[in-house]
């Protein structure tokens, strides 16, 4: 594994024809996508009445995740930014309707019409500024705001994400909460580097019993624990994962508002009573698109 795809190129460039075809020709990828999608659907906690629902698959790509939704009898609409990935989905004649679009610009759906949303390994892409006009914070806000609006009250969104670090996780979760969602993160197999998966389980509307966050699988660390990690606590685990994959490259500071400005702004927001991620060494850091 070289580095995070998110650091290599913007998604519509990274997921080109070659990468898109990898998706449906690798049995390993197919299996992983199917497994995560099954789990996401389970966490959606739809009423167990056999009635098909209208679901959304955000970053639907080649439609592997959507297929899981179809197999479970649901109707779905998929959104993706990569034409190549969607072409594969079209070739495979998936049952959902496909929309070519950027979730960072909002979802373009009418209010309250969607019964549930899943997203597999896509939302962390919003944390990168791939163009000079991109402001991750604003793009996440546009995304979660529009997601909240299009879901019916009480509906859930389950987003499986690969945040690069603690700051990204908090940025994503914090933005979701400010959009009005209740919920939190479910971590499956937290003690396994290979199988660890995290899901944002978000409920639309005021919090109630149904918004309490379910427990992750293998949290006791028994079933899937990797040999070398038993002594680590969860935080160490996270750090070591991102360290392993993050290329050590120099950070170019971009002109702009800068860290000091950001820290001040965050302090102001905190005083207003907003939920603001803690300041870390990553605060105000800019990454550049590498191409």
């Amino acid at each position, binding site marked *: 594994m070289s580095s995070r795809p998110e650091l290599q190129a913007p998604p519509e460039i990274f997921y080109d024809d070659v990468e898109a075809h990898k998706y449906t020709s690798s049995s390993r990828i197919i299996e992983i996508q199917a497994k995560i999608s099954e789990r996401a659907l389970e966490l959606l906690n739809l009423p167990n*009445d*056999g*009635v*098909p*629902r*209208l679901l959304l698959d955000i970053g639907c790509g080649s439609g592997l995740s959507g297929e899981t939704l179809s197999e479970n009898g649901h*109707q779905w*609409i998929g*959104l993706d*930014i990569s*034409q190549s990935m*969607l072409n594969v989905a*079209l070739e495979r004649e998936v049952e959902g*309707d*496909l*929309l*070519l*679009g*950027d979730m960072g*610009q*909002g*979802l*373009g*759906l*009418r209010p*309250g*019409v*969607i*019964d549930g949303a899943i997203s597999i390994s896509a939302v962390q892409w919003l944390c990168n500024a791939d163009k000079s006009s991109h402001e991750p914070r604003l793009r996440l806000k546009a995304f979660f705001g529009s997601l909240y609006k*299009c879901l*019916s009250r009480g509906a859930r969104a389950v987003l499986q994400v690969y945040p690069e670090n603690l700051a990204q996780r908090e940025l994503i979760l914090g933005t979701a909460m400010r959009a009005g969602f209740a919920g939190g993160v479910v971590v499956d197999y937290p003690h396994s580097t290979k199988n660890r998966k995290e899901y944002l389980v978000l409920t639309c509307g005021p919090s109630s019993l149904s918004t309490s966050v379910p427990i992750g699988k293998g949290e006791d660390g028994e079933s899937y624990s990797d040999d070398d990690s038993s002594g680590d606590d969860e935080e160490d685990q996270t750090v070591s994962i991102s360290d392993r994959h993050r290329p050590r490259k120099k950070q170019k500071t971009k002109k702009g508002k800068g860290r000091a400005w950001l820290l001040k702004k965050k302090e102001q927001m905190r005083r207003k009573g907003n939920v603001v991620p803690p300041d870390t060494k990553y605060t105000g850091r800019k990454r550049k698109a590498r191409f």
Partner: protein
Amino acid sequence: MRLLTHNMQACNIKGVTNGFPFRVEAEEVMEKQVDFNADFLRNLFPKIEWKALVEASRAMGYHELPDEADSSLLDSDDFLQKFHRALPQLHLEEGAFVCPETGRKFPTALIKCI
């Protein structure tokens, strides 16, 4: 692209305030078999903008839907069958959605919304 999706979509371009519903320009329409499920249709009905559905279905050459509909019709099997054909079964294979405000065209089968 199904009318199901058409009915949920509003034009998302910056500055557009009234992007619903897309006008449908149909070139090729197909009907695909989908399992009939009355409960699915009953759940969906309150979320549907009926007028938009009727207009879009007529633009696609399907004239079976009544001008107006309320939930009392959901007990009628005849109505549910027609609703079913229009919603998940009717597909716009070739054609375009047109933004009602800007006139911008979005070609199907992939609806581009950026």
